């Protein structure tokens, strides 16, 4: 007992003071679209295994991070620096379309971001895994002593009866459709659905096959989207705090 306490104390405080720090420079993160002019060569779109990138004739780039499996095939091929590694960690969104990054000029009459849902200050989560176990591990890590979701009132609960949010990982293929719907039906209102990881958001890289592994939204509408494959625990906390309307999510 004493030894255990000594060992625990020796580790010091595990939780870092800074919220949503950038990833270290040796880390790849997700790709992003920079201001550097795109030559329209199309190499990145050709290299992308999940068709996450569209290039227009005049060099308009649309990068859908909801389809990005972070395979690193695009940034290396881009000679103009238009696509580059993004080491920021506030990358989640409340609207699916906000995961699409472009180099288009900002629209002036941009629609305001949606108001966060009714669940504030605390969020109890029922996690349902449907075929992306790395994301499950990172959801687990977001509650560990380092990332410590508990300090924001985020808790993973054992029953849908106790849950405010249904967090789904994986592409929800045919055999998980029914269990997922039943879990959702067992939750009390108000309730939200959070798609965690690219597979949950769009089914990548398995979508469009005979197993109907096409993502959460083929089954249930989602209220928040956390990109990454798997998402870094900071990405996950960002998505959860966004859904809660927590000020830390805005940065």
């Amino acid at each position, binding site marked *: 007992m004493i*030894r*255990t*306490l000594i*060992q*625990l104390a020796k*580790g010091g405080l*595990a939780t870092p003071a800074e919220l949503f720090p950038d990833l*270290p420079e*040796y*880390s*790849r993160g997700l790709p992003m679209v920079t201001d550097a002019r795109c030559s329209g060569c199309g190499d990145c779109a050709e290299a992308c*295994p999940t068709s996450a990138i569209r290039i227009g004739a005049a060099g308009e780039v649309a990068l859908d991070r909801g389809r990005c*499996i*972070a*395979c*690193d*095939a695009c940034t290396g091929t881009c000679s103009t620096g238009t696509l580059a590694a993004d080491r920021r960690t506030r990358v989640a969104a409340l609207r699916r379309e906000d995961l699409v990054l472009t180099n288009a000029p900002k629209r002036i009459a941009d629609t305001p971001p949606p108001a966060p849902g009714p669940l504030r200050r605390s969020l109890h989560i029922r*996690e*349902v*895994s*449907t*075929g*992306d*176990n*790395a*994301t*499950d*591990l*990172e*959801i*687990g*890590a977001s509650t*560990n*002593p*380092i990332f410590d979701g508990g300090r924001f009132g985020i808790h*993973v609960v*054992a*029953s849908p009866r106790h849950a405010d949010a249904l967090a789904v990982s*994986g*592409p929800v*293929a*045919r*055999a*998980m*459709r*029914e*269990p997922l719907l039943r*879990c959702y039906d067992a939750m009390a209102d108000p309730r939200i659905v959070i798609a965690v990881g690219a*597979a949950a958001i769009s089914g990548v*890289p*398995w979508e469009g*096959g*005979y*197993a*109907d*592994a096409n993502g959460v939204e083929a089954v249930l509408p989602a209220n928040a989207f956390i990109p990454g*494959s*798997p998402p*870094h625990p900071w990405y996950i906390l960002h998505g959860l705090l966004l859904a809660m309307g927590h000020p830390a999510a805005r940065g």
Partner: protein
Amino acid sequence: MSDESMPAIERKTYPIDHLANKLATGIGAGRRLGLMTARKSGDGDPLVLVALLIDLVTGGLRLIEAPMRPGDNTYSSVTARVPQAHWFERSIRDFFGLTPAGHPRLKSVLLHEAWPQGFYPLAATSPQAPLRDTQARAYDFLQVKGEGVYEIPVGPIHAGIIEPGHFRFSCLGETIQNLEIRLGYQHRGIEERLQRTPWRRIPPFAEAISGDTTVGNALAHALAIEQLTGVAVPPAAAALRAAALEIERIASHIGDLGGLAGDIGFLGPAALFARQRGRALGLGERLTGSRFQSAFIRPGGVTRPLSEEMRRSILADVIAFAADFDEARRLLTDEPGAVERMENVGVVRPSLARDFGLVGPAGRASGQGYDVRAALRQPPYDVLDWTPAGSETGDVLARAMIRIQEVATSFDLLHQLLSTPLVDFEIMTTLPDTLPANAVGAGVVEAWRGELIHLAITDANGGLLRYAVKDPSFNNWTGLAIAARLELVADFPLCNKSFGLSYSGNDL
């Protein structure tokens, strides 16, 4: 370190009636059944059964193929003589519609009630998402009968952050009489998808089969393609791949040890191991740029060189971490209460482990010495100083101790691998533009759960005719069912955690 390309696979064709005999003889002569599946053949010809045998002494691979008789979808089951084949034959029936006559417990293994009858995705030319109102496949759980016997159905969704699967316990009082494990809930159609993906694009898909084994799957895929194309990997790349594989092993074993401590109710070590798992992921992130080490191993080599500065920093942390891990694990193994909780619980006897072909730490805890790294004499392991872990007792404690030993060994291997500078060496070999026709490549890897296999077979045009994946869990789920028998229901979580199996890799 050798930069020889891997020896070719011996490939033999036999009449279907000789299959059981050939497999039984091979296994009697010191081989194991790596995987068994089926494949299509040329236009209109019958399907072909395929089995990969691995020689445990020489590490040699032999592919046995047996064409089905025209117009006949039945063959005689090999399971009665080769129990290791029991799930493989059920899977062949699920995906190809071939019936192993005389199989002792024939039912679906991955495609059950969510799927329609008569839908065999790997036998079809272009399988379509079948309609939902078609007649569903039937599935019957084994019934244990007798006074006072009752069932506990658990899952597919579980209480924690765990992958889905269904456990059906038949109990008498608090004792489990039988556990039937029904998986397949995450079936995503992976093999069919890989077969029709241009082969150059497969690597990130392979990594997504079971993200907790990103490195293992990337490596098994790379080895299969390299064997197909006859490409040799530069020694520095082989060393960096091994480093990534050992980091994945360390992170995963430590994570599961934390889970085990948590299930015992010993929360101090559980919290320490959770932090140490994060530290192991950090090692991988420094080596590869990603916590799960994705986009690092590719056919031909690795994608990222290791700078001298980074090598030194990783090595320094490996040395310090090994000592910290040893202190943390002692909290668990020096605590009589924790040890007693694991002792004599969930025993798998060596004879059963052998019959059912258990692999990885679970196999080694039950007297099966097989470790792919040693048995296949894979570079760079063939020149490193190490020995596989081993035990005979086969209980939860043995599986925990094997994992602890393997973490220590992995730290030691990392130390050896990273002790010399690796800069200025080539890390990637160019691959040919096309795959050879009518060829076969097998990637066999000691992933952290055990033997992981990717098997690629090409057609007459060099296209992928079959891409098969065998996760170690596909062998070991049966081990868990054996371990749970006649144990208390309350011991099940502990047994389960000690195996730490994959659902995604199993379900495909």
